[in-house]
């Protein structure tokens, strides 16, 4: 066997040159993102010599797929953490926190109670109450603004998704054309992988390779985003129930599919999850606290009398004001109605979705924890007026009327005709609570720190040490401003005959007295069943037969029937308002406990988000390292190849030179 020395030399030089080209290309692309290193392939030929006919692209599709999904997970965790961290700061910083303002509010109330006759102290308390209201508003606004920021970002991100998807579809086409022409299209493939990586940072995707080498991309529950050379459009669209809130839709064959709840990964997934799990919840928690606070403070304030002897107004705005009860209900197909707060202590920080599942059935879902009530589970009553307890339902599907009570709220809705199957009602009892709260009283004189009644011992039986305190515990009509109308027939005289207590009004007619079965020292006087207000007298010491207590107004009435000599030094109602601070007014406890739970929950969410972020970052870095170890350029390695090919080149040149010398020698011999 013999070889053509010259042609071998030439082939060697060419092969080494190509090899140097590949090495050069690797070195120059050392900093190019997404670049996949290439390796020159050499083949020895049958007739001798070498052929450099192929360049291999060192890529692993399995690693790439993992890189994309890890990237989605990391970007989602990072987006969630950034937003959550903002909220976390907001809730606890002294300049924005509710806790400190509530302390100030109760301190000012104490100061007013210390000196109830001081109008200055009363005005200072109202100023603190106003500051607290503004703090509620500020926090609500900050949370709303985060919602706005998320809206803006959703719009930007859907645009970015569309750009990336368009690029990928375009690259699919170019790669197909290049490969059809027998070209390698390595750089195009690098670009396509890089575009997919960018897309995976925006949204979680599934990538599948078609037989023709095209990559198709799906999102959510398999909705197509890129199929071959065509890309579908993402859009930010208004939520069905809330026009201020953007959802994500994808347009497939002219139909918009809402995929908001299916996106989990990428920055978009992080934002949407954060909005659903943390932001909505926090807004509801804050709103619920504002409603509980206003409702309980109002109820107590209305049981007192002000500087001029009138029953207290609501201290804060009515939690069931007409515009509010309308705004708490939204419907898909135009059902109208109201949502009233019936028992603020039972409220949950959640929205509720009511879906009509058939002609005669519906179910209610509490969105915070997914609890479901089926219409069959509720206690059916015959008229709307009979709905009085949690779990009661009045339902007339043929006329489209529904009334029900759950979790401290009452829904009354009317579709003006049969309910359509698929009709959805969104019930948000507490969502805007922190925005809705307002101070209702602006004049310190109107602050009802005094109790409308006093009790004094008018006769003492033999050896009696009994003392009594009195509290107005039930108002028969909270709109009535004259305490004499609330408590007619006073003075009432309470007498003890050794076993029972009885009461007579000013005309000598009996008044209902009910002794508490759990504590015999507690007497309820008057009866709400008889449309009367109720007073609760609590006794201490040892009563004796013939003890008498007189219950009187905490003011005098002059000849012109006007209230005068008001008990302006009395702070008993103010103390009861102050005691609300300690009372378990929500499912979590007192006001501060309730707020504390919110801060703790946001803190925990943020903490978990930080851990998720750092865990997903570690996983992503590991995958990047794996990909780099396969596909990345190592300059030392390239240096070795460079020398290797240089030397091969020089050696091949020597072959040519040797062939020349042989030829020369031959010529000389000849």
């Amino acid at each position, binding site marked *: 066997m013999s070889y053509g020395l010259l042609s071998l030399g030439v082939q060697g030089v060419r092969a080494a040159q190509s090899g140097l080209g590949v090495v050069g290309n690797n070195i120059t692309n050392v900093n190019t993102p997404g670049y996949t290193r290439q390796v020159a392939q050499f083949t020895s030929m049958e007739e001798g010599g070498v052929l450099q006919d192929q360049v291999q692209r060192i890529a692993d599709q399995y690693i790439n797929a993992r890189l994309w999904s890890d990237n989605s997970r990391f970007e989602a965790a990072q987006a969630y953490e950034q937003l959550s961290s903002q909220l976390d700061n907001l809730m606890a910083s002294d300049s924005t926190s509710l*806790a400190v303002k509530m302390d100030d509010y109760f301190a000012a109330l104490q100061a007013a109670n210390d000196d109830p006759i001081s109008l200055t102290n009363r005005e200072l308390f109202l100023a603190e109450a106003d500051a607290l209201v503004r703090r509620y508003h500020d926090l609500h606004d900050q949370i709303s603004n985060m919602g706005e920021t998320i809206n803006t970002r959703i719009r930007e991100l859907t645009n970015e998704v569309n750009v990336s998807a368009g690029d990928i579809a375009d690259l699919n086409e170019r790669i197909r054309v290049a490969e059809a022409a027998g070209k390698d299209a390595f750089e195009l493939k690098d670009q396509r992988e890089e575009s997919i990586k960018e897309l995976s940072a925006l949204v979680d995707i599934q990538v599948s390779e078609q037989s023709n080498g095209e990559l198709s991309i799906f999102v959510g529950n398999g909705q197509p985003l890129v199929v071959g050379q065509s890309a579908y459009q993402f859009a930010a669209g208004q939520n069905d129930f809330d026009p201020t809130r953007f959802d994500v839709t994808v347009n497939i064959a002219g139909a918009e599919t809402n995929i908001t709840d299916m996106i989990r990964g990428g920055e978009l997934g992080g934002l949407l999850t954060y909005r659903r799990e943390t932001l909505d919840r926090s807004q509801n928690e804050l709103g619920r606290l504002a409603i509980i606070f206003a409702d309980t403070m109002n109820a107590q304030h209305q049981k007192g009398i002000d500087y001029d002897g009138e029953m207290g107004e609501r201290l804060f705005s009515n939690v069931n004001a007409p515009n509010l009860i309308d705004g708490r209900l939204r419907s898909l197909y135009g059902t109208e109605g109201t949502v009233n707060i019936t028992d603020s202590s039972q409220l949950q920080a959640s929205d509720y979705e009511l879906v009509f599942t058939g002609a005669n059935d519906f179910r209610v879902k509490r969105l915070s924890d997914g609890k479901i009530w089926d219409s069959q589970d509720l206690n059916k009553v015959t008229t709307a007026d009979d709905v009085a307890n949690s779990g009661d339902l009045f339902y007339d599907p043929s006329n489209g009327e529904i009334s029900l009570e759950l979790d401290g709220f009452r829904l009354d809705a009317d579709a003006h005709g049969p309910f359509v199957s698929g009709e959805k009602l969104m019930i948000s009892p507490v969502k805007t609570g922190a925005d809705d709260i307002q101070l209702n009283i602006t004049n310190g004189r109107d602050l009802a720190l005094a109790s409308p009644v006093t009790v004094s011992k008018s006769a003492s039986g033999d050896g009696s040490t009994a003392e009594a305190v009195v509290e107005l515990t039930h108002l028969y009509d909270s709109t009535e401003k004259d305490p004499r109308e609330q408590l007619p027939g006073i003075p009432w005289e309470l007498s003890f005959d050794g076993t029972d207590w009885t009461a007579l009004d000013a005309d000598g007619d009996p008044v209902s007295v009910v002794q508490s079965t759990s504590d015999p020292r507690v007497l309820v006087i008057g009866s709400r069943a008889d449309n009367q207000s109720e007073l609760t007298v609590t006794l201490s010491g040892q009563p004796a037969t013939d003890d008498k207590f007189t219950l009187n107004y905490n003011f005098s009435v002059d000849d012109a029937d006007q209230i005068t000599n008001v008990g302006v030094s009395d702070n008993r109602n103010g103390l009861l308002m102050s005691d609300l601070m300690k009372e378990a007014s929500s499912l979590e406890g007192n006001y501060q406990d309730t707020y504390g739970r919110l801060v703790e929950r946001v803190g925990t969410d943020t903490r978990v988000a930080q851990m998720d972020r750092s865990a997903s970052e570690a996983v992503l870095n590991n995958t990047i390292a794996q990909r780099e170890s396969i596909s990345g350029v190592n300059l030392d390695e390239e240096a070795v190849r460079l020398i290797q090919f240089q030397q091969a080149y020089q050696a091949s040149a020597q072959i040519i030179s040797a062939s020349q010398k042989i030829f020369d020698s031959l010529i000389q011999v000849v």
Partner: protein
Amino acid sequence: MRLSTNLFYAQNETNISEANSRLFKLQQQLSTGEKLQQPSDDPLATTQIMKFDRVIARTEQFSENITVSERRLSFEESTIDSVVTALQRVQEIGIQGGSAALSANDKKILADELDEILGHMSSLMNTQDAQGEFMFAGFKGATRPYVLNGDGTGYEYQGDSGARFLDIGENSTIQSTDPGSSFYGDSTDNVLNQILNLKQGLVDDDSAAISSAAEGVNGWYENVVSKQAELGARLRVLDDQAMTLSDLKTFTESTRSVFADTDYYEAISQLSLETTALQAAYQSFGQVQQMSLFNYVG
């Protein structure tokens, strides 16, 4: 493992930036003195700290209430001291006036002195504080409590029996006002009218009336003195409670500090550890990055 050049640089960058952010956090802890910069640093500790903050705020408020009560009760005490002094003189007059040796004219002089004392006492019993609140009117602080009737024959109590309480602890209150009725009597059955009776007895030179009125005054004197003792006891309770609150506040603040404040020893040693680590990272990066085969070829 095969290492790409890119990854080498990226990894070094990450390491250094992470070490920097740990240093920053420590530096923040040291400069603010607060261990937790935001609730997520330790959500459970944050909840505890918030609870301690509430306890401290309320303790401060209770202390403020004690100060207010002490001021008011001390004012009340000094007013009552003057009333007691005046009543002692009335008692003396009662004893002197009962003496048969005294002439009608002498009794008239004593009656005139009683007029002066009556004016002084009624103004004490109608004392107003800085806010203009009548101290002894019960809940009717805007109403003058002891008012002489139209024909000048008697005083009538216009206040009520209400007494104001203030919170001075989580579950304790203190009576911070006293209605005049409990010291000096209510409606027309009061010490001033008894003194009027004594005066009338002296004017009429009616020894039976004088001795009965003097006895009545003695009764009121005893009542005022016993209530005065009660008042003193209440002031002592306030002192005790102020001490308790101050202890509670100190204790709560020190417990809060365990959760919230930077442990300087720990933070400083951590800081030097992290600084050393960062320096090592800089140094090793500086050395390793010079290593390249390209420095040796060509």
